[in-house]
């Protein structure tokens, strides 16, 4: 009970800090704060269609976040997840552009997902090998590859895959309707993506909790040298973690192509990769809290789309709220740790 009360107090404190900060930001920009909050709320949970849009964002966000659980467990900062989504989208599009795809849609949609997973994993392995063999920090390797991924997409859209007539930022030509994922009418949402994201979540929970892989990742992440002496192979396990992260991110990119936009766009990854890093940090690397945080972040993202239309504000307010939430949580959390130390328990 005491622990519960403390968590409640800390949670309230965190939210209060974030609320105050965001309100100040809104006041500085001369916007009515409560109108902004109202539009974010109505714009995300105000109707079934809006909820469908939230889930549509939740799917790639959760897939990316779930993949990051593997890399964080082995103490890797997989910033490259953004580029892994992009390459997944590119590989998926490549398969669906094959002429025969229209005649066997089910087979080719399935194949395109496999290709997406491969695409994301390839990009992740590249960053992983640069780290393990080349000694390049995974943050810079991943980040560089993100920019390269963006370049690849732009080049394809304006080059080999440009729309007949005129190439533009609106992306490649739409796929024929046979190659769209079927979707639920009330939500305008494809159940296939939802099922895939939920399966990824459950698979990860099981893998990390009950298998040798999960244990190895954790052991190496906690103490690399000890794990090495124990006979675990840090380099190989890092690559394995990267493959999982890249594979899930690639699948997310594939779902964005087949189920949401039905074409390749320059902004296909929509920053979901970067956002997923925040999701996992806020969830404190916990498998079951991750989808909940992802849902909340998805609400903020979808809701803030209303801001430019309704109040002529930039939609990046969601990013401000999300970032300050993570920082406030880190601050409150570390304050608790500090309290413990002064309370007489020995420091770790």
């Amino acid at each position, binding site marked *: 009970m005491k622990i519960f009360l403390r968590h409640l107090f800390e949670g309230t404190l965190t939210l209060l800090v974030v609320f105050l900060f965001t309100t100040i*930001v809104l006041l*500085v*920009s*001369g916007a009515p704060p409560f109108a902004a909050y109202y539009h974010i709320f109505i714009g995300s949970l105000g109707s079934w269609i809006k909820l469908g849009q939230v889930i549509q964002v939740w799917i790639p966000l959760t897939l990316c976040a779930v993949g990051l659980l593997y890399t964080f467990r082995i103490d890797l*900062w997989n*910033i490259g997840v953004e580029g892994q989504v992009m390459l997944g989208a590119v590989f998926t599009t490549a398969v669906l552009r094959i002429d025969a795809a229209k005649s066997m849609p089910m087979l080719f949609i399935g194949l395109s997902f496999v290709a997406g997973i491969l695409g994301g994993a390839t990009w992740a392995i590249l960053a992983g090998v*640069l780290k393990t063999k*080349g*000694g*390049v*920090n995974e*943050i*810079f*390797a991943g*980040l*560089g*590859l993100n*920019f*390269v991924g*963006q*370049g690849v997409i*732009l*080049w394809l859209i*304006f*080059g080999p895959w440009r729309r007949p007539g005129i190439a533009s930022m609106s992306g490649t030509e739409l796929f024929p309707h046979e190659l769209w994922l079927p979707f639920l009418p009330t939500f305008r949402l494809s159940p296939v993506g939802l099922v895939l994201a939920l399966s990824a979540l459950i698979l990860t929970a099981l893998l990390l909790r009950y298998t040798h892989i999960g244990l190895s990742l954790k052991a190496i992440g906690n103490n690399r040298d000890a794990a090495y002496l124990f006979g675990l192979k840090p380099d190989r396990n890092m690559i394995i973690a990267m493959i999982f992260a890249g594979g899930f991110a690639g699948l997310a990119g594939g779902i964005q192509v087949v189920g949401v936009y039905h074409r390749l766009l320059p902004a296909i990854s929509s920053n979901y990769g*970067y*956002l997923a*890093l*925040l999701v996992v*940090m806020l969830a404190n690397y916990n498998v079951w809290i991750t989808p909940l945080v992802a849902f909340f972040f998805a609400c903020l993202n979808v809701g803030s789309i209303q801001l430019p239309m309704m109040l*002529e*504000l*930039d939609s*990046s*307010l*969601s*990013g*401000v709220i*999300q*970032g*300050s939430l*993570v*920082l406030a949580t*880190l*601050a409150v959390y*570390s*304050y608790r*740790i*500090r309290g413990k130390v002064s309370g007489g328990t020995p*420091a770790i």
Partner: protein
Amino acid sequence: MTEIDITILFAGVVAGAAPIVLATLGETITEKAGIINLSLDGTILLSAMAAFVVAFETKSILLGFAFAAVVGGIVAAIVAFFSIYLNQSQVAVGFVLTLMTRDLAYFLGNSYSRLQGPQVLPLPIPFLKDIPFLGQILFNQNLLVYFSLVMIVFCWWYMYRTPLGLKLRSVGENPRASYARGINPKKQQMLYSICGGLLVGLAGATFSLSVKPGWGRPQGAEGVGWIALVLVIFGGWHPIKAAMGAYLFSFLQVIGIYCQGWLPTVPAQVFQVAPFPLMIFTLLVMSLAQKESVLNWAEDHIRMKSILAFLSGSVPTSLGKPFRQE
């Protein structure tokens, strides 16, 4: 190319490098004291926005720069505070701030997009600008370029030739030992994080008030912060080498613009992302140059040996590992 072209080319390189030099020097100072401020990319944008908005509203370029420096200092102070006093990962906090400051910049600067604002005016230095060739490159610029040039020398002198600089370096190398010598590592790290942040803030202002004047989404300075972070590594945590890296980068950027004219068949997107594979490649070479097998092989190749000696830089031993008092 005629001789005039070369002068213009190099003058462009020096002018374009000014903000990158400032950001790289700022981060070098911070990292030399043992703190990684990963938030550079966002900080540059936020301070660029702040500089433009303040200069636009007050019609004072000086206030714009002052405000931007303060913004940079505050963000750096947050990173340092979370690390030094709250024991949080510098990388985690820095990354969150990278995203958050960028979004904050886009949000707050939204109504100032695509406006015509004040700009830093050129300020040729009399007599010096008449030196053939060099005069046009170095002394027919604006005040910021001169400032960035002076800062390179100043940073080097401060770090390696003053007692204060010795303190700064000792904290980054071995905070425990410097603590025993009566230095407070936490205060030092906080101080130099903020100093570094001020320079990063000025770098942002240099973008929005001089190199890429104006504000918008995107501003055009996106990605530069990451480049600066890599240049610090490239420079081996030495201010002069890091600044040379910044000029090299600026040179490649300018060459890239020329190349686009020469090779119209290569899509523009290739040139835009070209710095990033190059960045990975540089880090790869830097890292391989430290490997024992490579060093042994270089023993027989005098020229390779000197190249490797240039590339080798020592990372501050306690970089990213804050001092814990027990």
